[in-house]
């Protein structure tokens, strides 16, 4: 046995060992990149993130002052996007899971959602620019940006909501029906509340995607640097990500750029951890 084993270049046991080492090393490298990016940005930026920075208006093109109008603008665009995408996404998921059997219509809807998920953000930006900004005459505005983001995060909301709704035990629906609920009541009163954490996860991920988006919002919400907090849906706004892009690209202020990036990265971290925490609690409940 050993003679034959020697004749093979390496034994299965050795190849097993090598594979494990290499694969884990690659995993570690990937994580290292992540940790490096986060630490690099936060280390340089955190010192410049102060209460004044978070609550002040920018001045001198962003060389001084804070980012409050951008934070508000980002939140407004994101909130609008999520407020529109959630009902559409959850409605689609309900239709796909509860109201129809797999067939041609579901195939078309699923294909549409998958394609939409793959459409690059720059295309959403172009479309939003033509359709919302020009054709519908919204101008560069929170409204145009929010609508564009809604379209962009819709597939995420559909996918996670569908998963969440599917994972609600079928028996819950039967129980609700047998207790005199109509189909719609069984969905609203039993299925959706049970699926809510999963749906919320999708929504939170959509929030994350909206916050970090640049290409789509720069074309639709504009990049006008405003000292004042936007007050109307038709106000243009510069989101945090766009502001960071401008600061970094124009070389206006490295400190402010790192500070803005720190706010962005930390927000994304918090959002992801929250989403994951909700998700894992949700999974535990049904296992």
């Amino acid at each position, binding site marked *: 046995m050993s003679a034959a084993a020697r004749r093979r270049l390496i034994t299965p046991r050795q190849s097993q060992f090598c594979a494990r080492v290499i694969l884990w090393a690659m995993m570690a490298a990937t994580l290292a990149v992540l940790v490096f990016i986060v630490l690099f940005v936060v280390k340089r930026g955190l010192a410049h993130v102060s209460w004044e920075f978070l609550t002040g208006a920018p001045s001198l093109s962003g060389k001084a002052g804070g980012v409050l109008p951008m934070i508000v603008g980002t939140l407004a665009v994101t909130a609008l996007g999520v407020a529109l995408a959630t009902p559409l996404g959850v409605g689609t998921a309900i239709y796909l899971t509860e109201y129809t059997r797999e067939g041609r219509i579901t195939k078309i809807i699923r294909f549409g959602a998958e394609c939409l998920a793959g459409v690059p953000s720059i295309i959403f930006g172009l479309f939003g620019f033509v359709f919302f900004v020009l054709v519908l005459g919204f101008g560069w505005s929170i409204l145009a940006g929010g609508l564009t983001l809604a379209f962009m995060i819709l597939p995420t909301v559909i996918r996670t909501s569908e998963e969440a709704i599917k994972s609600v035990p079928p028996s819950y629906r039967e129980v609700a029906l047998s207790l005199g609920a109509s189909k719609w009541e069984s969905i609203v009163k039993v299925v959706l509340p049970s699926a809510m954490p999963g749906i919320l996860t999708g929504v939170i991920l959509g929030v994350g995607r909206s916050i970090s*988006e640049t290409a789509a919002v*720069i074309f639709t919400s504009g990049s006008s640097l405003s000292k004042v907090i936007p007050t109307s849906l038709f106000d243009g706004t510069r989101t945090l990500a766009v502001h960071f892009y401008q600061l970094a690209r124009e070389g206006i202020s490295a400190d402010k750029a790192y500070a803005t990036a720190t706010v962005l990265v930390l927000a994304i971290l918090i959002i992801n951890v929250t989403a994951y925490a909700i998700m894992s609690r949700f999974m535990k409940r049904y296992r």
Partner: protein
Amino acid sequence: MRFRLPEKVVERSLLLVAMSSVAILLLITVFIFREGGPLLVQVGLGNFFSGAWDPQHDQYGIALMVVGSFAVTSGALLIGVPFGIACAIVLAEMAPPRARSILKPAIEVLAGIPSVVYGFMGIVVLLPMIRTHIGGPGASALAGSIILGIMVLPTVIGISVDALQAVPRSYREASLALGATQWQTIRRVVLPAARSGIVAAVILGMGRAVGETMAVIMVAGNSVQMPHSPLDSVRTLTANIALEMGYAAGDHRAALFATGIVLFVIIMILNTLANLARGRLKKRSVVVVTLAATAADLVKPRAKPEEQ
């Protein structure tokens, strides 16, 4: 009795809602084509796919941008796919549940970091590294490939993990029971069984790379030229749109929308391919044949030493 929404009404309204994503897709298609289509007809497809891009002299050829996108994307896949699949294998097959519960969200954070931050990291970290250690101006197809390679990781990992987890546990048990090591099982049973899912992961990762804009603008240099080495600067389709859109008017703007059409068509083709690949995943019979073949394959080398 209280008023109830008639079920038919509910169903119809939900169908309407569900068609929204299809409607949006159509809307996007219509408007992108409306803006860019006439120019395609006007200059002709031949000219549009030529290598001359000079908007000041009404020359709108995007061949070099197609080459640029292709170069950066294939570079990104060369980097992103091995690492992506390796991470997926670790996550799906090797990592203990506790480690997985940390690793998986970490990878998702990687997906959440804004692309402008990736681009910025490229400028301040990657470009100087390339400049001093490899040469050239730094801003290059190579830089774009590395940054995009990192950016496609979450896509490749996510879908590959799904594909690997969809392989029935019984396949692994069957293989392990035949005396295969874990790595042999992964390589000869799990990976082949998950093949089409992984192919879909690669295709969708490709779509992500082709479509990325801001990070590429920041690191790839954006020269409209034929790259002769990875250190040459290139301009991608997306970069072309975002760089010049602000200034463009008339035919120039239409040409940028036409660039968008090309991008859109490429993405649609990739989506369809990924869809087909994933569709094949469901046909398990292929997998069963693979398993049988693999089992036979596994037995052979073991049988040999025992003869002696």
